[in-house]
C-alpha cells in the first residue's frame, strides 16, 4: 500500500516538474546576463540579392569566407551558462549537448561556425526578431548556408532552432515568384474585404501536397460571390508557381505555410 502511495506521489511530482519545466516563461534565461552583441552594419547596395540565384549564392559564399576571419579575431565567446532546456531532452540529445559543451571548452579556436550560431541565437532571444531581422538578415543567410554544409549540425539540432519565420530575402524571393503568377481579377469591389488566406502543406522541393482555403465558408455567403473568384485566382497562382521558391534548409519551419492574398492594394492603385 505504502509503496503504491510512494510510486503515485513520485510520479505526480515528476509530472509537476515536467510541466513546470515546459512552461515558456520558466525556460527563458535570466535577464541579468549581459551577452556581447555584435551587430554587423551591412552596406546596402542598389540591387536586391536574392539567395536563390546561383550568382547571388556565390557572392554570399565569398563574403562569408572573408568575414570568417573577422569572426575568429573577435574575443573568445563567452560560454553560456547551463540553460534550462525548453524541452525535456531525449537521452540521445542530452549526450550530444554535453559533447558540444566539452568541445567548446577544449578548443576555443575551433568554434567558428557554431560560436557564430550561439551568438545569433542570443540575439534572437534578447531582441524582437522581427525588428532586428533587417540588420542580421545577411548573417542569417550565412548561418543557413553553413548549416547546410556542416555535418556536425544534426537534424535534431536543426529542429530546435527557433526561427521566427523566413528571412527577409527568403520571403522576398517567395513573394516575387507568386507576384508573377497571380492574375488579379479586376472586377472585384474596392470596398470589401479582399483577403484570401490559403494554408499550404509543402514538400521539401516546394511542390504542394495540400492547399486549403481558410475562410471557405465565406464563399457561400450572400453578396460574397467575388470571394470565390478571388480565392480561385489565388489557387491558380499557387499551382502555376509550383514548385515554390522555398529555402533550401529548415524544412520543418516552412513545411506548413500560410499565404495571405490581398488584392486591395493593387486595385486601389
Amino acid at each position, binding site marked *: 500500500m505504502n509503496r503504491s502511495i510512494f510510486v*503515485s506521489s513520485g510520479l505526480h511530482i515528476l509530472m509537476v516538474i515536467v510541466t513546470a519545466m515546459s512552461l515558456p516563461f520558466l525556460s527563458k534565461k535570466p535577464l541579468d546576463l549581459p551577452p556581447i552583441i555584435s551587430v554587423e552594419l551591412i552596406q546596402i547596395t542598389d540591387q536586391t540579392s536574392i539567395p536563390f540565384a546561383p550568382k547571388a549564392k556565390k557572392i554570399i559564399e565569398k563574403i562569408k569566407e572573408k568575414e570568417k576571419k573577422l569572426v575568429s579575431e573577435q574575443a573568445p565567446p563567452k560560454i553560456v551558462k547551463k540553460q534550462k532546456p525548453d524541452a525535456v531532452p531525449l537521452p540521445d540529445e542530452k549526450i550530444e549537448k554535453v559533447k558540444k559543451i566539452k568541445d567548446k571548452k577544449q578548443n576555443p579556436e575551433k568554434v567558428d561556425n557554431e560560436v557564430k550560431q550561439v551568438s545569433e541565437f542570443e540575439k534572437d532571444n534578447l531582441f524582437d526578431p522581427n525588428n532586428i531581422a533587417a540588420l542580421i538578415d545577411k548573417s542569417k543567410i550565412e548561418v543557413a548556408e553553413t548549416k547546410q554544409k556542416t555535418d556536425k549540425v544534426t537534424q535534431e539540432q536543426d529542429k530546435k532552432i527557433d526561427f521566427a519565420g523566413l528571412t527577409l530575402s527568403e520571403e522576398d524571393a517567395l513573394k516575387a515568384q507568386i507576384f508573377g503568377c497571380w492574375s488579379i481579377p479586376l472586377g472585384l469591389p474596392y470596398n470589401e474585404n479582399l483577403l484570401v488566406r490559403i494554408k499550404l502543406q509543402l514538400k521539401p522541393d516546394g511542390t504542394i501536397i495540400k492547399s486549403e482555403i481558410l475562410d471557405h465558408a465565406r464563399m457561400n455567403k450572400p453578396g460574397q460571390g467575388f470571394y470565390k473568384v478571388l480565392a480561385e485566382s489565388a489557387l*491558380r*497562382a499557387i499551382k502555376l508557381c509550383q514548385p515554390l521558391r522555398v529555402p533550401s534548409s529548415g524544412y520543418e519551419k516552412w513545411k506548413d505555410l500560410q499565404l495571405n492574398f*490581398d488584392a*486591395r492594394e*493593387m486595385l486601389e492603385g
Partner: protein
Amino acid sequence: MQEKCWKDKMLFRYLLLLILLLPIKAFALIEVDITRGNLSPLPIAVSPLSIDEESKKNFKKILKKNNIGSEISIVVENNLKQSGLFNPLNKDAFLQKPDIANLKPRFEDWNLIKAQALVTGKVTFVDEKLRVEFRLWDVLAGKEMMALAFTTVPSNWRRVGHIITDKVYERLTGEKGYFDTRIIYVAEEGPKVRRIKKLAIMDQDGFNNKFLTLGNELVLTPRFSPTNQMVTYLSYFKNLPRVYLLDIETGMQEVVGDFPGMTFAPRFSPDGKKIIMSFAQDGNSDIYTMDLENRIVERITNHPSIDTSPSFSPNGKYICFNSDRSGYQQIYVMDSNGKNVKRISFGNGLYGTPVWSPRGDLIAFTKLHRGKFYIGVMRTDGTGERLLTENFYQEAPSWSPNGRVLIFYRETKTNSKGEGFSAKLWSIDLTGYNEKLVETKTDASDPSWSSLLSN
C-alpha cells in the same frame, strides 16, 4: 497476483500520461502576405464549338455560314480580347479536337500552351432551333467551373456568343459582363456645316447596325433607360427642341414635350420612371425632373447660375450636375430633392457632362484644360481624380452597364495638315490602358450604352 496486474496497469497509464505530457516542439505557422499580382490579360483558350454534320448542313441552309460553331467561338474570342482582361490563345496551337475537348479536356495539353481557362461547347440543330452548350474549365485546377445551355432561333447566334462571353467574364472576373448590350448613337454624314444626323443602334461590338430615323431632322444625345430598352433623344421639330421617348423593341415613339432652351436630352432615373433634365426658363438654366406617368415637372435647383447635365446616382438618392456657380464650370453633387449642394471638383480647368457609374463608386466627366479635352473619373466625393484619355476634342462619356468601360466620341482632323473632320466612337476601360476604336460605318457621336439585354 490481481493486485500486481492492477499496479502494472496503473504504472502503464502513468507512463502513457507522462509521454503525452512531454512537451513537443511546435513551430509557429509562417505567414507570407501577397499584396501584388499582375494585371496582364488572363490566357484563355476558346475552343471552336463542336457541331455534327447534320446540324452543320441545316445551319448552312438557314444562316449561310459554313461552321456556326466556329463563328460563335470567334464572337466569344473577339469579345474577350476587346475587354483587355483576357488573352485568347491562337487556335493553331490547340492540341485537342473540339468534340473531344468538350467531353473531357486533356488538361496537360491545354496547360502546355499556357492556357489558364478553357471554353468548350457543342452546337446542335433541335426543332428548327439553335441549341448551344458550353463549358468553362479551370485548366490549372483541372475542374469544370460552369456549364450552361441556351436554345434560341438560329438568327440569334451572335447574341448567344455575347451571352457566353458575359457568363465567362462574370465567372472569371467577379463582375457582370457587358457584351450582350447595344449602343445607340448619332450617325453623322456630310460636311460639318450641313451635317445629316440619324439615330442609329448597333451591338456593342459594332455588328447589326440599324438606323432608327431618316435624317430629315437633327437628332441629339440619345440616352438609354437603365431598366429597359427605352431611349430618350432630342430632335428639332420646326426648329424647336423636342424630347422623344422611343421603345426600341416595339418601335413605338412618343413626344415627351417641347422644351425651348434645351440643349441636351434628359437622362432616366435609375427606376426608369422619371427623367432628369436641364432647360432655360427666363434665360436661366436649372435642373428639373419629370414623372413619365403623369408628366408633372418638378424644379430641383433654383440658382442664378447655369446648372446643366444632371445625372442620378444608381440608388436614386443623389444627383450630380455641372454648374458655373463658383465662377467656372465645375461638378456638384446634391440630394435628389435639390438640398445639400456640394462642389466636388476642384482641379484646374472646366468640368462637364458628369455621369454617375452604374456601380455607384465613380463619376465620369469631360474636362477642358489648356485647350485639350480629357475623359476622366473621380470618386463621388471628388477625390481620386484620374484622367483616362486626352485629345484635341472628345466628350460625352457613357458607362457600360457594369461600370468598367466608358464609351465616348472623339473628333479628329482627317489629315496631317489639320484639315478635314471625322467623329468616331472610342471606348476605354478604367485602367486607362485599353483604348479601342468602336467601328461604325459612318461618323458617330453621342453614344449611350444599354443595360444587359439578357437581364
